[in-house]
């Protein structure tokens, strides 16, 4: 627990934070109407700058780092705080040897795509939660629906009024586990049997059940159905669709949250840069995430507190630092494009061939609102650009990934491909070379100007932090 030892280095002397202005700069851009837009820039210096990650920001501040937190949301709005009710309820005490069982579970559930040093770190330090059911995707009534609906006798219907689960799971039917149900719902929608004008959801039917049965165990469902879907559950079916709940990929980091660059077969740390939480890929989750792990933010803060000191010197920033971002912003405000492209991301990505064209259309983006104060239009346009970059990389990586493992399930490549075939004894098997198996991390890079994605690969870290204390779990077949 060296992170806490680091923090126990309490300084009794208070250090007043520096609010130093290293200077002001001005970016100026000429635009078509020959009015130059001026952007005065003020530089501030801090020990630590945290983008999002509220918990990490407080952790660093507690450790006496002069910290700035840059966030789109006011701190009380952050997801960690809002989710607090759920986290506190789910957490239990990690005592004794239990964490080793949890370590084993996490490795298994990650389908051996998780890095075992990262998993060792979070399970031993009690920062992860021993939930037995992996979260893959959840049925969604706008937000989510409990399995109670299905458990109470609700059935899933496609556009033809067919109870399609009977086809996929003749015995379990609608009571099959949720990850499997989500997958089959997606399949129905992809094959054109979705409901609604966009054919993008299926129906959960409850109105065949007696009203008393609905009211008693499921009062919240009736209300949510009315609030968000305008549906009276005693008369009509509820639209439901599978949704993305969590991103298991992200910026590659070490188990302590230090950002890594991969070159010449080696991981190199990018000094001073850390990533944690959903943005990062340490990877403690692999291809399946266990529940309630947003506290991993704190692990990151702790390891920073250990390796750096408040007041450490940092190299000066470049004179044109930030110019690219401001140029982009200026272009969005003053673009001369006249037509607004309507993005129909769902259908185009489905076709699989439109993604480069779609990226090209981004250069036509412009905002309606040109203001610089509380401009929601501008912020959401920037979000679109960022989301597009993420989507391009995710889709490209997934297309190239020709196997099924955990949440990455493909009908065209159903088998998991490791170095060895674990359905048979390993003796006598030839180990597959790195290029021919898929037990590896995909690294994707995107050229922002063209949208072209380049893919590389780096190996999984199998070695734990202390093999004597917690041995590596070798790969085995994982059936769902």
């Amino acid at each position, binding site marked *: 627990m060296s992170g806490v030892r680091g923090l126990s280095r*309490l300084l009794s002397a208070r250090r007043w*934070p520096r609010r130093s202005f290293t200077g002001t700069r001005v970016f100026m851009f000429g635009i078509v109407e020959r009015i130059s837009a001026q952007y005065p820039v003020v530089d501030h210096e801090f020990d630590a700058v945290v983008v999002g990650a509220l918990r990490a920001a407080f952790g660093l501040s507690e450790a006496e780092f002069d*910290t700035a937190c840059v966030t789109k949301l006011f701190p*009380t709005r952050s997801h960690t705080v809002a989710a607090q009710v759920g986290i506190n309820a789910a957490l239990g005490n*990690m005592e004794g040897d239990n964490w080793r069982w949890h370590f084993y579970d996490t490795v298994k559930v990650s389908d051996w795509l998780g890095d075992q040093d990262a998993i060792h770190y979070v399970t031993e330090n009690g920062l992860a939660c021993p939930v037995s059911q992996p979260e893959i995707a959840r049925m969604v009534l706008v*937000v989510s629906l409990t399995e109670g609906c299905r458990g109470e006798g609700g059935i899933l219907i496609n556009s033809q009024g067919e109870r399609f689960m009977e086809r996929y799971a003749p015995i379990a039917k609608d009571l099959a586990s949720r990850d499997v149900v989500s997958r089959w719902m997606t399949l129905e929608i992809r094959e054109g049997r979705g409901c609604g004008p966009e054919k993008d959801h299926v129906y959960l039917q409850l109105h065949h059940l007696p009203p008393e049965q609905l009211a008693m165990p499921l*009062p919240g469902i009736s209300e949510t159905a009315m609030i968000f879907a305008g549906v*009276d559950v005693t008369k009509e079916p509820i639209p439901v669709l599978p949704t993305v709940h969590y991103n298991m990929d992200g910026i590659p980091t070490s188990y302590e949250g230090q950002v890594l660059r991969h070159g010449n077969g080696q991981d190199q740390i990018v000094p001073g840069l850390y990533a944690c939480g959903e943005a990062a890929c340490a990877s403690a989750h692999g291809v399946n995430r266990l529940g309630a792990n947003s506290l991993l933010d704190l692990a990151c803060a702790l390891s920073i507190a250990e390796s750096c000191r408040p007041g450490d010197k940092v190299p000066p920033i470049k004179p044109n630092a930030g110019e690219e971002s401001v140029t982009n912003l200026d272009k969005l405000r003053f673009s001369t494009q006249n037509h607004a492209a309507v993005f129909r991301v769902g259908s185009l990505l489905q076709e699989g061939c439109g993604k480069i064209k779609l990226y090209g259309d981004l250069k036509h983006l412009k905002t309606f609102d040109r203001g610089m104060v*509380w401009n929601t239009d501008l912020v959401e346009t920037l979000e679109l650009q960022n989301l597009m970059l993420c989507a391009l990389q995710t889709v490209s990586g997934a297309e190239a990934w020709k196997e099924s493992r955990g949440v990455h399930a493909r009908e065209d490549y159903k088998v998991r491909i490791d170095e060895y075939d674990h359905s048979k004894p390993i003796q006598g098997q030839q180990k597959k070379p790195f290029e021919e198996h898929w037990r590896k991390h995909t690294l994707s890079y995107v050229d922002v100007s063209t949208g072209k994605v380049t893919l590389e690969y780096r190996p999984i870290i199998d070695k734990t932090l202390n093999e004597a204390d917690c041995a590596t779990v070798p790969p085995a077949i994982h059936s769902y």
Partner: protein
Amino acid sequence: MRRDAPSGSGPPWLPWSAGRAARSSRKCPRSRFPVQVGKMAVATVFSTSSRMLALSRHSLLSPLLSVKSFRRFYRGDSPTDSQKDMIEIPLPPWQERTDESIETKRARLLYESRKRGMLENCILLSLFAKEHLQHMTEKQLNLYDRLINEPSNDWDIYYWATEAKPAPEIFENEVMALLRDFAKNKNKEQRLRAPDLEYLFEKPR
């Protein structure tokens, strides 16, 4: 997820103005570190002035000045948890803004309606904003401002709007009534996502 509101359990909602002592029994994000909370600057992107919210130097000395155990973990609502070591994370109290124009206030409230801590409120408040924000008077805007910005947990707002829990007196006003009415979805609309912003710039018919 529609969390069925627990009845009578959990600490009561208290406004910031009630004071720290009154709030000391509240659950909040907590850590076991017996350190004093340092000064921290929080910058919200695109705020009206380059506003860095400098927190006052609360010295929240934990009752446990020396820590016996260095185990780092989070405790749930275990009955044996005395919660004595809880440290509250100080956040600036909500204050009505008197220095911004009504247009800026409207633009700010639109942003704050659309960026929430959970999806239910993102959808509900952004649709509510689309319906009502443009017609609100300055007084109503201030009432709405308090409603969506003072509570520290988004779920509280959702429970009050859906009448799962009674709202504190201070929020019982015309805007709360509008929100409750809106939540009922009398026109039975499909409210599956936040609306796009085009409506702001469309010419009124």
